[in-house]
């Protein structure tokens, strides 16, 4: 199964991620 987030945010929104990395519920995805 898959979860897809689609959202609007100001231009300076930054993801703290690398494609392919494992992630767990509660960990940071990103912020301004």
């Amino acid at each position, binding site marked *: 199964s898959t979860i897809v*987030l689609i*959202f*609007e945010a100001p231009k300076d929104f930054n993801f703290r*991620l690398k494609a392919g990395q494992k992630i767990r519920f*509660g960990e940071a*995805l990103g912020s301004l």
Partner: protein
Amino acid sequence: MHTAPLRSLFLLRPVPILLATGGGLHFPRLALRWRLGQLSCMSRPALKLRSWPLTILYYLLPFGALGPLSRVGWRPVSRVALYKSVPTRLLSRAWGRLNQVELPYWLRRPVYSLYIWTFGVNMTEAAVEDLHHYRNLSEFFRRKLKPQARPVCGLHSVISPSDGKILTFGQVKNCEVEQVKGVTYSLESFLGPRAYAEDLPFPPASSRDSFRKQLVTREGNELYHCVIYLAPGDYHCFHSPTDWTVSHRRHFPGSLMSVNPGMARWIKELFCHNERVVLTGDWKHGFFSLTAVGATNVGSIRIYFDRDLHTNSPRYSKGSYNDLSFVTHANKEGVPMRKGEHLGEFNLG
């Protein structure tokens, strides 16, 4: 066999056994190759690849076995089209039925231990570690975690709603979203038209850009996306990724093809074919949506505050979707969700 003395049974020669088993495996392939050779002389209507046993054989057999079919000047049916014709929903519901069968007490540990070993499940995080507690694999699949197993990050405004693997993320460019690096699908096909019955009637999107404008409500903002793949051994509940208000749900019944990264790379618009539940609403910066996409083994999606949602039903009309608004007299904006709050779960079958 049953009259021979026990001793002579152990004298059974390995060679005859090997010949018997080898022949037993190879003969059906020869017969099928001959049969398909015959079929290839038939005209296309006579050869209904839609009969899915043959579809599966077509897909499973190396193309060499089907040489005659591809040589008869016949457009080889693409494997994607074949895969889409596999009755994934039927398989998914059968898988779900199987996993609702209550396991005898003594069988639970071996069955769940095999699942844990195969998919690398970490049971030390489970709220209930005793395997005998789970009456069937469905219950085991819906296991909850110990509260302290997943601390919610307080620093960042958006957190991961679930365990999993990040397939892709970033800014949405010209209304195309990546399902994996390089494989995109249209945002409008994925979310459906923005015009909801009870909302302001948006003009139907004349172009991608106007669809984007319907989503981005504030000057200077951009659209972002993130795709998280949950593997079979992952914790399969999902939570609210931020503080937001859910105002609308759109359920797209659809196929239940596998969504593992390999398939997401292989089938363009895979996420637009599969059954999915799209929750939309607003957060402090404007539009926000979370979509749960089902798959063959995980065909059912539950949203805890949405009692009317029924997924993986036997009958549905292709391309249809059904909407539900959470805006009521009591909740003018919809259902408020706090970051990290329980939101829903995927279930087997």
